[in-house]
């Protein structure tokens, strides 16, 4: 019999039980939509992570004190990082791949403006190179200059959160705040970076290194040295150069017993990317299971349909319907269920991906749409074949006797 007629029979069969067909399709719809949507969310989150890490600057390296091997014996004798280390890195002829160096000290303390007191997340003392290396840009006012650093001027750049807390709607530029008894003139306000987790990167005060050392930490060690490589490709070379130079200044001979640690954004990126992939795979697996459950729903409903229409199958067989036609009729019906369900699921998934989900903007993977649709249709064929085969193999005499 021709395909068109089979399709018409299948449509008739589905239309006879509209609610049942709709619910079965809903199962497939949810499966397909969740595959598309969850993969898009996973993909979207890894795209977002990649973007934010790229925004931090992929060519920046952070040197911090302490052994990179947790239980190293030499920890007690470890030298702290100093401004001299930073100077050695900055001036060394052995480091052609280092673009700029910024030693960093961090401390905390309450800031006062008028009668408003606020404790920012951190107070950072550093060199102007810090701004470029850590991808901080001013929105209002200006950075402090090398001149400010040399003269240990009492100027500060505020993060946007800190500025809002202290000044609310007032323009902070040129105003004076007091931190730990020391008056600072606000020279600029940084652009909002936005929170990436529990830490607010906009809640900080940045001031010249000697000013902060003078007022709070003293002229001892620094917490970190931020190094910017000349480009993203040279970070590995720059890392080797830093190791070489610091081993010299710290008088270390054994490269396995370093008393400092170098981390770069690229390795962070790789780590976050692999986390993102695991996340995506997990989401995809959950979605695939729901697709499978939708497929089992098809089998279930088709088995019910076959049982319910056993008599009809008997009549058709008595009229001379060959096995293939009966098989085709029920297979068409189950495939139609899955095709319609999958089509609506693709639609739902694509529409759903326009909304941001738990703060993540989903990015649809085109292959996932095709794969989800294809798998759903294949599931319809596969899961429909058992009930269809059962219908086709019924003996006409038994089918006719069925009440």
């Amino acid at each position: 019999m021709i395909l068109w007629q089979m399709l018409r029979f299948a449509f008739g069969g589905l239309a006879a039980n509209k609610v049942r067909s709709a619910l079965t399709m809903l199962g497939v719809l949810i499966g397909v939509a969740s595959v598309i949507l969850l993969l898009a969310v996973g993909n979207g989150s890894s795209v977002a992570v990649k973007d934010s890490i790229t925004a931090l600057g992929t060519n920046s390296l952070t040197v911090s004190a302490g052994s990179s091997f947790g239980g190293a014996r030499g920890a007690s004798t470890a030298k702290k990082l100093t401004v001299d280390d930073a100077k050695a890195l900055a001036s060394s002829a052995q480091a052609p791949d280092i673009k700029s160096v910024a030693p960093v000290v961090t401390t905390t303390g309450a800031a006062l403006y008028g009668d408003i007191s606020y404790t920012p997340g951190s107070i950072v003392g550093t060199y102007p190179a810090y701004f470029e290396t850590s991808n901080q840009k001013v929105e209002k006012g200006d950075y402090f200059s090398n001149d400010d650093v040399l003269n240990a001027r009492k100027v500060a750049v505020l993060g946007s959160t800190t500025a809002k807390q202290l000044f609310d709607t007032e323009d902070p530029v040129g105003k004076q705040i007091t931190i730990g008894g020391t008056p600072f003139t606000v020279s600029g306000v940084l652009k909002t970076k936005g929170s990436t987790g529990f830490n607010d990167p906009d809640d900080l005060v940045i001031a010249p290194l000697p000013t902060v050392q003078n007022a709070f930490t003293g002229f001892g060690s620094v917490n970190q040295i931020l190094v910017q490589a000349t480009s993203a490709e040279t970070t590995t070379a720059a890392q080797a150069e830093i190791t070489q130079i610091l081993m010299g200044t710290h008088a270390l001979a054994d490269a396995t017993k370093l008393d400092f640690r170098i981390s770069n954004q690229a390795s962070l990126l790789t780590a976050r990317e692999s986390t993102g992939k695991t996340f995506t795979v997990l989401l995809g697996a959950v979605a695939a299971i729901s697709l499978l459950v939708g497929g089992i729903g098809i089998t279930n409903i088709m088995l019910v349909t076959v049982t319910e229409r056993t008599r009809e199958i008997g009549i058709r067989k008595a009229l001379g319907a060959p096995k293939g036609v009966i098989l085709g009729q029920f297979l068409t019906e189950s495939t139609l269920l899955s095709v319609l369900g999958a089509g609506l699921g693709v639609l739902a998934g694509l529409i759903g991906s326009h909304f941001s989900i738990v703060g993540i903007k989903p990015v649809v993977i085109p292959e996932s749409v095709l794969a989800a649709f294809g798998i759903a249709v294949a599931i319809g064929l596969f899961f429909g074949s058992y009930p269809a085969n059962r219908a086709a193999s019924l003996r006409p005499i038994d089918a006719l006797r069925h009440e």
Partner: protein
Amino acid sequence: MGRTNSGSRGGGRHTGPAVRAGDATRGDAGPPPVIQIRRVTKSYGLGDATVHALRGPSDPVTGEPLGVTLDIEQGDFVAVMGSSGSGKSTLMNILGCLDVPTGGRYLLDGTDVGHLDEGQLSLVRNRKIGFIFQSFNLVPRTTALAQVELPLAYAGARSAERRRRALAALSLVGLADRSGHKPNELSGGQQQRVAVARALVTAPAMLLADEPTGNLDSRSTEEVLGIIDGLNAIGRTVVLITHEDEVARHAKRVIRLVDGAIVSDVRQGPVAGPPPAIRPELVGGRS
């Protein structure tokens, strides 16, 4: 034309006096019988629990069932009668190729259907047999026209051809104006007439009606039987299963089954002539 196997093994089947007498009325030059069943048995279960739904007479020596033997001539109108459990439904299922006999041979229109596989059997059902059931057995949610087209569709006929023949068949049963109605929009009598149209649309070798009037009121019964009479009058072979004498009155030959064996075989009219209860105004169809 037929004969019953009332003799012992070997003897009565081929040379019984009844057979000779039957052949004589018809002449040896006539077409071969549409149905020839030879020593057909049907049993269910195994060992001591075996039930012989169709057994024929028992072998006088061993007590084994010898099976039913029966011929039905082309153009005949045979009523098979018997109470429930007499084996008439089993016989009907075997005649309709819906069930296979446990033993014996069945030749339908010259073809031995015992050796056919599932696919060939469906072809035989499609081409050679038109079923009319007691419970109409129309396909739900399908218009009368589509019902009648169904056997043609399974036979692979083209759309236009299907439509033409289905409409002709519906006109023959007087339902041309109801072709777009679905089963739930038709009365019982109309449904059965659609079933008759569906049974005859492929021009089968035999119409097989299983209690066609069992679910109908007396007026619809007369209508349906009138149509069947008319079909027989224009040469269709009809096998009708019933337990009502009133219905059997229409047949040219009445066979009675008791406990799976033929106990009587009465001819009420000649094979060649019109059926005995036909009402002349129905001959040639109604439209």
